[in-house]
């Protein structure tokens, strides 16, 4: 490993740049739909426009943590065990935290307008989502504890799967518990979304745009994680080489 021998300055490639442009175009499309093309709601007025960023944020949180759980399972399964699965799981969890935070913030903002307060401990959807956020904060913190890569990967995989168990609880909380949050509007059991066509399409635009952002972020974050692993392994090799080269007496004094 030689410092200063790079010719490529970062994590970008032609493919990731195209993806980035598509994601930006998707976000611009979302803002146009959200602010200009979608109508105001008869009951909620303009505040309904928050739905086009709130719902996609929540769905992308589910997707991110779903990817974390899937990759964790792949790591724990001996036939597919590879640190690459662990790396993607960790990266996706970080992005999931971002989307969960955004879903919470936009939900609280929307709650302020529609219910008159930002937080309610009696709201099962709010509380289980906050719990999801905290569980994955714990997951990310666990990954940062110093340990051998395989040990860290195994315990992170177990923690990731356990934390993911809260996702179905979050989704079903509006059905299973009494809650202020409205019941499902789009993903209903009767497969009949209770929403105006343009509004539904605006949510769809948001989901597509946020998914593109997620994939773009995951590609770049994964490349950063690859480099972090390379440098960590390089640092360990160097420390071992220095250790081997030490005179015996120095080691004895140090121990």
């Amino acid at each position, binding site marked *: 490993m030689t410092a200063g021998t790079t010719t490529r300055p970062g994590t970008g490639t032609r493919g990731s740049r195209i993806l980035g442009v598509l994601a930006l175009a998707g976000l611009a499309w979302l803002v146009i739909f959200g602010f200009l093309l979608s109508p105001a709601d008869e009951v909620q007025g*303009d505040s309904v426009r*928050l739905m086009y960023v709130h719902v996609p944020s929540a769905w992308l949180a589910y997707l991110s943590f779903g990817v974390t759980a899937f990759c964790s399972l792949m790591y724990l399964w001996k036939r597919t065990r590879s640190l690459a699965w662990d790396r993607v799981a960790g990266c996706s969890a970080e992005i999931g935290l971002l989307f969960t935070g*955004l879903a919470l913030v936009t939900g609280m903002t929307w709650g302020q307008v529609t219910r008159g307060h930002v937080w309610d401990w009696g709201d099962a959807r709010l509380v289980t989502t906050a719990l999801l956020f905290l569980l994955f904060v714990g997951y990310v913190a666990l990954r940062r504890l110093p340990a051998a890569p395989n040990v860290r990967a195994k315990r992170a995989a177990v923690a990731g799967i356990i934390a993911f168990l809260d996702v179905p609880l979050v989704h079903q909380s509006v059905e299973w518990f009494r809650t202020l949050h409205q019941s499902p509007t789009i993903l209903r059991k009767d497969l009949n979304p209770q929403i105006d066509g343009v509004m539904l399409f605006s949510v769809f635009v948001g989901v597509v745009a946020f998914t593109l952002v997620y994939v773009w972020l995951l590609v770049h974050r994964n490349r950063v994680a690859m480099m972090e692993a390379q440098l960590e392994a390089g640092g360990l090799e160097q420390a071992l080489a220095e250790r081997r080269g030490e005179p015996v007496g120095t080691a004895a004094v140090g121990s």
Partner: protein
Amino acid sequence: MIAAVISGYVGTVVLGYSLVLGGMALFALRVLRRGRVLARQLPDEDKPWT
């Protein structure tokens, strides 16, 4: 006046969109910046995407 706009529906919506887009942008910038710093410390052969 600013408080009145923010407390209104449109102000809240603008605030919500700003938080979402700003949050994503901050996260993306942090990842890109970290990538640039680390990429300088590694040769291209250690970066499979190059």
